[in-house]
């Protein structure tokens, strides 16, 4: 059909007989660079917006670690893996002082036991009840800011005297309005991917500030 032959170039995206990948590869590479630029822009914007609050939270975390506090990180799905990466950054950093930290999603026996027996929305809260002391820290990561399992755990953590920190996205969701969060960093984006990338750099900055405070000579002795 000659009509098709003549106009096919107008509709590359519906062309099932497309056989030369060159232009697709060019488009993909350009798309990757565009998304990378947006990722870096959003990371910088988030770091700038929350610089004072990150410094304050990091110094409070350092003070708690020096008193023997430990860090719990919480998240669902991809954010649970980012929570685990953040916990590992604190507990097993490539440089600096390690401190006790772990992700509350990392033990499948505990998570499935709680999910099955008391309900998924309590998988983190029940662990907070079991583990937490008043000198500890809880960091919750959610791209929506609305996850019920995180919110109930944060409320419990706040009641037990923990320092509570939330990483949120979109419009901040329930996290942005939660009185139980001492600090809430909302990454203003509609893309879950870009939000997660910014959560990572915010967590990294928090770790950096904490390390800096823990390396400072302090007067007196620590309990």
């Amino acid at each position, binding site marked *: 059909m000659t009509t098709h032959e003549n106009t096919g170039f107008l509709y590359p*995206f519906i*062309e*099932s*007989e*497309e*056989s030369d*990948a060159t232009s*697709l*590869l*060019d*488009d*993909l*590479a*350009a*798309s*990757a*660079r565009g*998304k*990378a*630029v*947006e*990722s*870096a*822009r959003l*990371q*910088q914007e988030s770091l700038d917006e929350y610089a004072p609050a990150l*410094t304050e939270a990091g110094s409070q975390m350092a003070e708690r670690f020096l008193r023997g506090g430990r860090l719990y990180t919480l998240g669902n*799905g*991809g954010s*649970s*893996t*980012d929570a*685990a*990466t*953040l916990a*590992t*950054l604190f507990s097993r*950093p*490539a*440089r600096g002082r390690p401190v006790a930290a772990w*992700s509350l999603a990392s033990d499948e026996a505990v998570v499935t036991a709680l999910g099955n027996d008391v309900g998924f929305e309590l998988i983190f809260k029940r662990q907070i009840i079991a583990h937490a002391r008043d000198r500890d820290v809880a960091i919750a990561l959610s791209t929506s800011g609305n996850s019920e399992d995180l919110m109930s755990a944060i409320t419990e953590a706040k009641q037990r005297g923990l320092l509570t920190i939330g990483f949120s996205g979109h419009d901040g969701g329930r996290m942005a309005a939660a009185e139980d969060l001492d600090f809430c960093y909302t990454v203003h984006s509609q893309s*879950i*991917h870009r939000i*997660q*990338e*910014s*959560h*990572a*750099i915010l*967590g*990294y*900055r928090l*770790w*950096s*500030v904490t*390390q*800096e405070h823990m390396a400072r000579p302090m007067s007196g002795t620590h309990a």
Partner: protein
Amino acid sequence: MTTTAQLGGSYIGVELSADLAAAALDLARRFHDGATLWVISPQWEPHAHHVAVEFVHPVIMGKRALPSVALVEPDPVAQARVASQPGDLLIAVASADEPAVLDAMRRAAAWGVLTLWIGSGPRPPAGAANHILWIDSEDPMVPATGTFVLMYHLLWELTHVCFEHPGLLKSPTDECTDDVCVTCSDEGRLGEVLLEPVDGQALVRTAKGEEWVDTTVLGEVLVNDLILVHAGAAITRLEVNP
């Protein structure tokens, strides 16, 4: 002063973006043909889990769920060996000196598995994986700054763009014809020994499947040895740690 990290997006230049594009097209082609994506990250298990959940449970409604599994047991090579089948995919997120990843990447050709290696720091040698997606930075903190997360997010996003181009999902290897294609010829294929030889014949796994191979020229042959197969015979053994 507070440690500052270079932002991940700043590393994605012309070269790395082209590498990501080529890798994504290969991912899409293999998924199209029924591949499962295996993921290993012995130093940073959460990255393996993040890649797997990305493909299994897409963040964008309506995108295809694709088979992907994080292999995080203490011996990821043993896990990948038994899990993978010809046509599958393997992504490693690891530094270039991670022994288990080096080993898995060498063996993947015998398993018929296409490999991608994401990392930072000194590069793996050229050809160590089918696609090397690398951040050229000496900063040991790169794995914790979201930069790897950005890279596998981009891979996922680009892979799904490829699905909108069905005409390009046909693997080039489908077009091989006899006698002219090195990939399909018998010049010396990598094999992994499945069963030790009986009467000089060992059962060997190659990208084409399983076959009995004459190993008489090699002397002692053990399970999991890597050998080169030519015309039905093993012609040499590859050292495990060259």
